[in-house]
């Protein structure tokens, strides 16, 4: 229950962190809040020759609202997101997902970028990033590049970030007036990873669903978009939406994992139910907005 030995580096600038990582190669791992990596190290599910701790890089801790997006630095802590007015106003879906992550002691350390880069398919933030078409900004020896969330998640704990790259920030688009947001999940115990869940955003204009986004978690090897359900919603009268039918459509054709926490069949039912519940709450909120 103790990690294998490693070298520890704590750079104070992003450039230094990128250089360190480039020099150390894939023997090194980026450490952010450590709430996923450290348990894996302690259990020796994984080991690295070196850790590059980005927790002391000031510029990665910023929250900025620029035209149309809220940019969250990689190491913004989840407990900060939970109480941040800019996030609450600009990306309510992210704010609503946050209390569902672990326990408050985990959110004290856990970060936005860490959760997204860790890419657990049952985690909330990756599904929110995918649902909202967030953009992931990464930095490496060749400079910076931006990866759309749709091209980011490859599989369980796998992303398209290179071994020599660092997730710098996530840019979440701000949705306009008349929007509503909700996250629903089912977990065995509060704070556990969800069996399945859904993050839903809708915009209602003149009584019609003008825009809909549904992100699923726990339903595959990556977070998933329920595109068919989104299409069925778009243009529909908000008051006449059959939420149960949209839930069914959202999970149609999926083959969620079958493990000791839940069977594949249970995940399909839970996934459909959470989409349905989240959709109803999102539409109610959009109606009030």
């Amino acid at each position, binding site marked *: 229950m*103790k990690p294998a030995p490693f070298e520890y580096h704590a750079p104070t600038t992003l450039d230094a962190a990128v250089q360190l990582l480039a020099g150390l190669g894939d023997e090194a791992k980026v450490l952010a809040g450590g709430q996923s990596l450290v348990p894996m190290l302690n259990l020796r599910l994984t080991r690295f020759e070196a850790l590059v701790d980005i927790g002391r890089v000031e510029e990665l801790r910023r929250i900025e609202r620029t035209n149309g997006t809220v940019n969250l630095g990689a190491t913004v802590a989840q407990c900060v997101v939970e109480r941040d007015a800019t996030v609450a106003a600009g990306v309510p879906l992210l704010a609503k997902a946050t209390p569902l992550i672990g326990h408050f*002691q985990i959110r004290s350390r856990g970060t936005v970028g860490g959760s997204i880069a860790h890419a657990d398919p049952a985690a909330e933030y990756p599904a929110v990033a995918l649902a909202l078409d967030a953009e992931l900004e990464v930095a490496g020896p060749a400079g910076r590049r931006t990866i759309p969330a749709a091209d980011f998640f490859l599989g369980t704990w796998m992303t398209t970030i290179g071994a020599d790259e660092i997730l710098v920030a996530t840019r979440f688009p701000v949705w306009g007036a008349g929007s509503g947001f909700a996250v629903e999940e089912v977990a065995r115990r509060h704070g556990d990873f969800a069996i399945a869940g859904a993050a839903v955003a809708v915009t209602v204009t003149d009584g019609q669903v003008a825009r809909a986004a549904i992100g699923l978690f726990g339903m595959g090897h990556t977070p998933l978009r329920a595109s068919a359900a989104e299409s069925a919603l778009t243009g529909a009268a908000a008051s006449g939406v059959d939420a149960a039918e949209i839930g069914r459509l959202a999970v149609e054709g999926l083959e969620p994992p079958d493990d000791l926490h839940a069977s594949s069949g249970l995940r399909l039912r839970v996934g459909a139910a959470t989409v349905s519940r989240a959709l109803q709450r999102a539409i109610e909120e959009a109606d009030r907005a």
Partner: protein
Amino acid sequence: MPELPVSVIVNGVSRTAVVEPRKTLADFLRDDCRLTGTHLGCEHGVCGACTVILDGRAVRSCLVFAVQAEGSEITTVEGLATDGELSAVQAAFESEHGLQCGFCTPGFVVSVTALLEQHPDPTDDEIREGLSGNLCRCTGYQGILRAVRVAAEATKARTA
């Protein structure tokens, strides 16, 4: 692997040691600071027995490496009582039978101390959610729940 110096303030006292980077903050507190009130149950962030307050936030000290805490201020369960007098949370755990074997108690007491700072007047739902990150395997949670209610009242009375 090169060892690194760590300097932190624990319960108001400056502490310095040279440690392996892989040493967790929990082991640093227990082995180097000889503060064995911080308990280790699971060592992977599930049980909450090792909870301490790091720069104002309750954290799992088994999921923080001591080197990450360099320059920080830490409060452990040993730092909660003042001049030998139990804190409101500690006193409430005693009066409401919030502990039996006591193994999980330091983590609960520290977590509840942090919880009440954020929610001085918590609802029962907030208390339950606030306690969900700590496991107790013998007392049962009802006494602990009562202790939080009593501690919240006592804290309000003290600050009123």
